[in-house]
């Protein structure tokens, strides 16, 4: 009798469990392919003009601190180089002497010395993956060798994944 009661109770429990929940499952794999990505952009460029108004400016040169700010986005470690697009500034025509790009120097903001620009890229800074920002200082020191006028130079920043 006791055995029959136990069996009955067990069957009840089975039925309750079976009725409690029924389910079905299916799964799928989602694939994400993350490729190399890097970008560099100016976020500010407020110090790219120099106006030489007196002999002191020509004698000592002019410095613009935080002349430009740049932002690098990269999903790998990166490095930035800087160079000039041309060997000389665009300026007054001959016989005015050509002003070489080395008249303009650049450094990471707060750095100790300016590197004279040339068409050969020079290292500027580097960083780890993520979004990073930095600023640069410019120094222009033409001396007294060039005619008065407006001189322009394109400066190229190149970000490369390491």
């Amino acid at each position, binding site marked *: 009798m006791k055995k029959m009661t136990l069996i009955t109770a067990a069957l009840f429990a089975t039925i309750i469990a079976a009725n409690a929940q029924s389910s079905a499952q299916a799964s799928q794999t989602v694939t994400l392919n*993350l490729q190399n990505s890097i970008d560099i952009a100016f976020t500010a460029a407020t110090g790219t003009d120099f106006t030489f108004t007196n002999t002191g400016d020509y004698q000592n040169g002019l410095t613009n601190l935080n002349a430009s700010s740049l932002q690098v986005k990269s*999903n790998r470690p990166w490095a930035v180089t800087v160079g000039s697009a041309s060997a000389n500034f665009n300026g007054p025509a001959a016989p005015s002497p050509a002003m070489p790009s080395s008249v303009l120097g650049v450094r990471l903001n707060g750095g100790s010395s300016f590197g004279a620009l040339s068409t050969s890229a020079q290292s500027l800074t580097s960083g780890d993956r993520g979004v990073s920002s930095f600023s640069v200082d410019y120094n222009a020191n033409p001396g007294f060798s060039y005619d008065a006028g407006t001189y322009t130079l394109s400066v190229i920043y190149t970000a490369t994944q390491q």
Partner: protein
Amino acid sequence: MCYTGIRTNRLLARNILMLLFCTSAVHAQNSQNNITLTALNTGFILNSVASIETQQTRANAFQIAVNSRNSANFSIRARVSSSTSSTGTPFPASMLALRLNTTNPPVTANLNTITLSTTDQLLQQITSTKNNITFNYDLLLAPVGYSYAPGNYNFTILFTMTQP
């Protein structure tokens, strides 16, 4: 006493036979519950700054066909059951989300975006007279950003249909 005991045993045996019948009927009904998953567009290739910085959407990525033994009530849940990567750093499951696009036939359903996790998230709690319903889901990938190294990342999403 003996006669009474025999009658009691017969009664219990009859009940047991009835219970056995009921049990087999439940199992038969269970076998009619099923969920069929069709993945139509579940891959992401992020090859530009724009694609890394913005939410990516794969419309109608999943087609979930549900056959319910009891048309009155059922739920659908989903979770990321596993994730792997070629870089050794897996993405968090919360990078993925699901959003109902359409159902066929039309039923009253949850249209909210459901962010996935490693535990079951309720996608739908359906009360309908329809036995067979197909749910078309969009797959959303949150902006990945630049914190993750290039490589392949895999997620396995497990869908579960349950009837109370």
